[in-house]
């Protein structure tokens, strides 16, 4: 037993080192700016999905309004730059605005859980979408806001696709480290407790509401950061980013990969972005495919692709061992 545990651990560390090595050297073996850009997209969407996963996977709170929060930070960045402020101030304001909106979301929606939580977050997301779409004097309506420049951290201009990729990779690495610490912390354990047994947690003296509130803020932080990367990537923000479809897309990333795992949302982000970008170049009907994947995963592999594949793999290994043993 101990031997397999160690082998499991060693295998896992080896896989992580290989994966990070591959990501670090990606621009050297992945030829073409197009593919480097797709990789950047996967990474910042992965940060977004990790943020939603904090609530969906570990908190058991399914939000269908996260695109609204994403949009607040993206619009805040664009609007600050339009007003002529610098990049660092725009980023700080965007994160602050994102966190403040998340706090409002949390106060309003944490009154209920389950379907009620879905409905309130959906309503909040639709309100923000409606504001972005209709408050033309502030947001430009359907014309959106252009972001003409990208920042240059330490003198490297992010206009270069490779530089943009490395900045995104750095942010991604920090985000996944934060999530790793969060999952292993007493706070992460408490949040999982409120997901599985809220009443027992309450009886044990935990403040269930406060735990969920802080989890929301952590989720909001990751969402805001990914939104800023997004707006610098596309250099444009329009109400479409806040639509229900976008909330559904990021939820699909979490659910398809495997909610409540670290690797799942990253894998899900990769799946959705690849289907959207690469496959849509060959197949016209990518939205249909996206919906079909969604339905198939919920019905056939409800725990998500990463845990589902691990389960199938273990099952296959056990059967092979059984066959080899006698």
């Amino acid at each position: 037993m101990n031997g397999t545990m160690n082998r499991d651990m060693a295998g896992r560390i080896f896989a992580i080192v290989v994966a990070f090595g591959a990501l670090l050297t990606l621009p050297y073996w992945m030829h073409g700016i197009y593919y480097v850009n797709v990789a950047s997209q996967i990474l910042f969407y992965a940060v977004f999905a990790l943020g939603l996963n904090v609530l969906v996977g570990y908190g058991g709170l399914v939000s269908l309004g996260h695109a609204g929060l994403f949009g607040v930070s993206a619009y805040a960045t664009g609007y600050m730059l339009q007003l002529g402020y610098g990049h660092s101030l725009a980023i700080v304001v965007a994160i602050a605005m994102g966190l403040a909106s998340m706090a409002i979301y949390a106060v309003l929606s944490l009154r209920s859980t389950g379907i009620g939580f879905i409905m309130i977050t959906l309503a909040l997301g639709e309100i923000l979408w409606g504001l972005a779409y209709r408050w033309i004097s502030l947001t430009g309506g359907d014309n959106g806001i252009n972001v003409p420049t990208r920042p240059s951290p330490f003198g490297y201009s992010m206009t270069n696709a490779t530089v943009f990729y490395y900045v995104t990779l750095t942010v991604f690495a920090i985000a996944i480290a934060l999530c790793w610490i969060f999952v292993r912390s007493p706070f992460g354990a408490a949040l999982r407790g409120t997901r599985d047994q809220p009443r027992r947690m309450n009886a044990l003296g935990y403040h269930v509401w406060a735990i969920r509130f802080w989890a929301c803020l952590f989720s909001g932080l990751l969402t805001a950061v990914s939104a800023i990367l997004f707006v610098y990537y596309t250099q444009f923000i329009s109400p479409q980013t806040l639509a229900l479809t976008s909330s559904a897309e990021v939820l699909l990333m979490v659910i398809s990969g495997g909610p409540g795992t670290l690797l799942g949302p990253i894998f899900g982000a990769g799946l959705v972005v690849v289907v959207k970008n690469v496959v849509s170049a060959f197949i016209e009907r990518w939205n249909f495919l996206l919906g079909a994947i969604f339905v198939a995963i919920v019905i056939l592999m409800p725990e998500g692709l990463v845990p589902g594949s691990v389960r199938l793999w273990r099952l296959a290994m056990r059967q092979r061992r059984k066959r080899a043993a006698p």
Partner: protein
Amino acid sequence: MSFWLVLTVNSITFGGLLFLLSAGFSLIFGLMRIPNLTHGSLFMLGAYVGATFAAGLAGMQMNFWLAAVVATLTVAFAGALAERLLLRRLPGDQLAQVLVTLGLSFMAADFCLLIWGGDPLSVATPDGLQGFARFGTVVFPLYRLAIIVIAVVVAIALWLMLERTRLGAMIRAGVDDPDMARVVGIRVSQLFTIVFALGAGLAGFAGIIGGPILSVYPGLDQDMLPLALVVVILGGTGSLLGSFVGSIIVGFIYNFGQALLPELAYFVLFMPMLLVLLLRPQGLFGRHVP
């Protein structure tokens, strides 16, 4: 003066249309405890199917009302199929059911885009209702008044069905307490299929009836779903009276909001929903909290 009158009639018309859309949504929500996120897609599907038959398919042109009946039956069948084949596989798992309806709505939107393309289809106003009714100095399109009549007739029919028939009694029992309904011998899962088909059919019917004033275009589903959601949350799930009152309220808020506060129209629309969710989560006439 006439501006306000016209706006009022438009609001009631839109409210009637919303009632047709949201009555089924409310029943499904009340019985199965899930917001059916395909409801906007069913509305759009009904509009497309009806518009196609009304405009003529393969040299065979249908009367508008016949086309509406065909659209209603088609969409009801599609709804029953989705319930039987997909939602049935996830009994009791409401979260998964909501996600399946969400995935289906993506698929339906793309399916409609594939079949009917991206250009909006206009639906001709049915014969005999193209004229105007004159009240003093104010003129109303007849068709808008007809929608109000249709909505009222459907509301009365639904009310009679729910209050006076055996099926209606079983549905009410299922909405109030599904477990107890099962115990007394009502086959609740069969009710699910019936109510889902009924709700889908109503949504499809609303789609084609709304066709002449809204036209049919890609994205219609995304426009209508939030409205149905607002209506049902305002009125309360599983309550026919709730969706009727909610529809009229939303019809007014939507039209007056668009006319008076165009920049904040959606904000004004969703604010009451949020207030109800926070202050009276079961809705104005609902029996239980979603």
